[in-house]
């Protein structure tokens, strides 16, 4: 893959996710209109210095912003597919996202910081059009992805619930929809092993650029991990953003070896 193709692939995958998350937010706003209509401006969630952007996160501005976000995500996806990417449009998406952030932060948005990394790195690549800066951008994406995984693993290592398997058991109950408490209690040893497997993957992800074997192993594990969370548990907001960063890991591995 060339640098250009790598960045295009990153943006295409990331913006499938951005489009999806916007559609989901719109569905929530239609099914539960109060989610968008509840005024946040004078609540404890909003600091005084943030009130200036109430027009964006309170009704009806948040609806307008939601539609703009959807259009921008679609346009960027189109631009990515047809190689027409423009840094201004990418930055516009980030600005829209920042303005409405207090509202969306009530839903699960942990993927947003990594999405911003992908967008800004791509914008810088497009803006400077310099090979060295572009490669630096891909390293930047790789480092941020490793940091995200490592931090997730690190917090799990520190958690007694993850060390004794209780967290996996609770996760299966809440998200995998296994409601049989006997089954959950009987297999504690296996939950512990699965927990260690997840921690090992997350903490060790930075090794993915140490040769093709490790690269393939980690990326395959990552893909299965995120696909399982998406398909089985309905936690689909991490999938596109994390998978979008994988082309950067592939490029960095290829550049080093």
């Amino acid at each position, binding site marked *: 893959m060339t640098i250009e193709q790598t960045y295009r692939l990153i943006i295409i995958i990331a913006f499938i996710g951005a489009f*999806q998350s916007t559609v*989901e*937010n719109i*569905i*929530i706003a239609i*099914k*539960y209109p*109060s*989610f968008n*209509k*509840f005024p946040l401006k004078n*609540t*404890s969630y909003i*600091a005084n210095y*943030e009130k200036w952007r109430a027009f964006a996160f309170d009704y009806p501005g948040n609806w307008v912003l939601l539609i703009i976000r959807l259009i921008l995500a679609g346009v960027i996806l189109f631009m990515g597919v047809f190689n027409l990417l423009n840094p201004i449009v990418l930055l516009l998406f980030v600005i829209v*996202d*920042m303005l409405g*952030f207090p509202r969306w*932060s*009530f*839903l*699960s*948005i*942990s993927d*947003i*910081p*990594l999405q*911003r990394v992908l967008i800004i790195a791509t914008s810088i690549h497009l803006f*400077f059009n*310099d090979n*060295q*800066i572009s490669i*630096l*951008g891909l390293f*930047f994406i790789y*480092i*941020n992805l490793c*940091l*995200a995984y490592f*931090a*997730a693993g*690190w*917090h*799990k290592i520190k*958690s*007694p*619930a993850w060390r004794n398997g*209780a*967290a996996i058991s*609770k*996760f299966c109950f*809440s*998200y995998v929809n296994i409601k049989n408490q006997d089954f959950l209690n009987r297999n504690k040893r296996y939950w512990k092993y699965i927990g260690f497997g997840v921690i090992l993957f997350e903490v060790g992800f930075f090794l993915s650029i140490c040769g093709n074997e490790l690269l393939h192993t980690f990326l395959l594990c990552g893909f299965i991990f995120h696909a399982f969370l*998406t*398909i089985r*548990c*309905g*936690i*689909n*907001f991490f999938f596109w953003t994390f998978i979008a960063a994988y082309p950067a890991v592939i490029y960095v591995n290829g550049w080093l070896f």
Partner: protein
Amino acid sequence: MNLIIVSCFFSIWVLIVAAYAFLNLNKAKNPVRFFINYGWVAKWNMFVPDYNKYINQYHGYAILYRDIQISGSNSKIGQWEKITSWNWKPNMFIINTRGRLIGFNTFISRKLIALNILGKKDLSHADSFKFLCRVVCDIPPSTSANFRQVKFEHIQNKKAEILAQSEFIPLK
């Protein structure tokens, strides 16, 4: 020159991301707050139930509502119903709001439990609870109810304690 500027920019960004992920910078007044409020950093502590005493998911919770039908001097009060998956079946994994709505539940619940642990007893007027009530009232009633009551329970050692309970909220 451009390379140096971009390197510095990326380095500072990585330092901020790492500092927020690994250090305890979640307090209200610190320079990192700006990056939190605008969505530039994350703690990456998803699915860690005992992350700290305020957001410990082992403090179980339940969000319940019941519908009330009042006509003239007659009133019919329904059974408490627990919100589990927001009546949304995960039949499409590409577009599926269930995960986000569970995220909303968790976010609100953590706030209410944290307020309770910090000593605030009456949470019925807390912003989080008001927001929760408004959204719960959007769930279509199964009968021709015209009011709804919402309550939030904190569950510890299989004992439920009511932290907040709303008045009868008129359904639109």
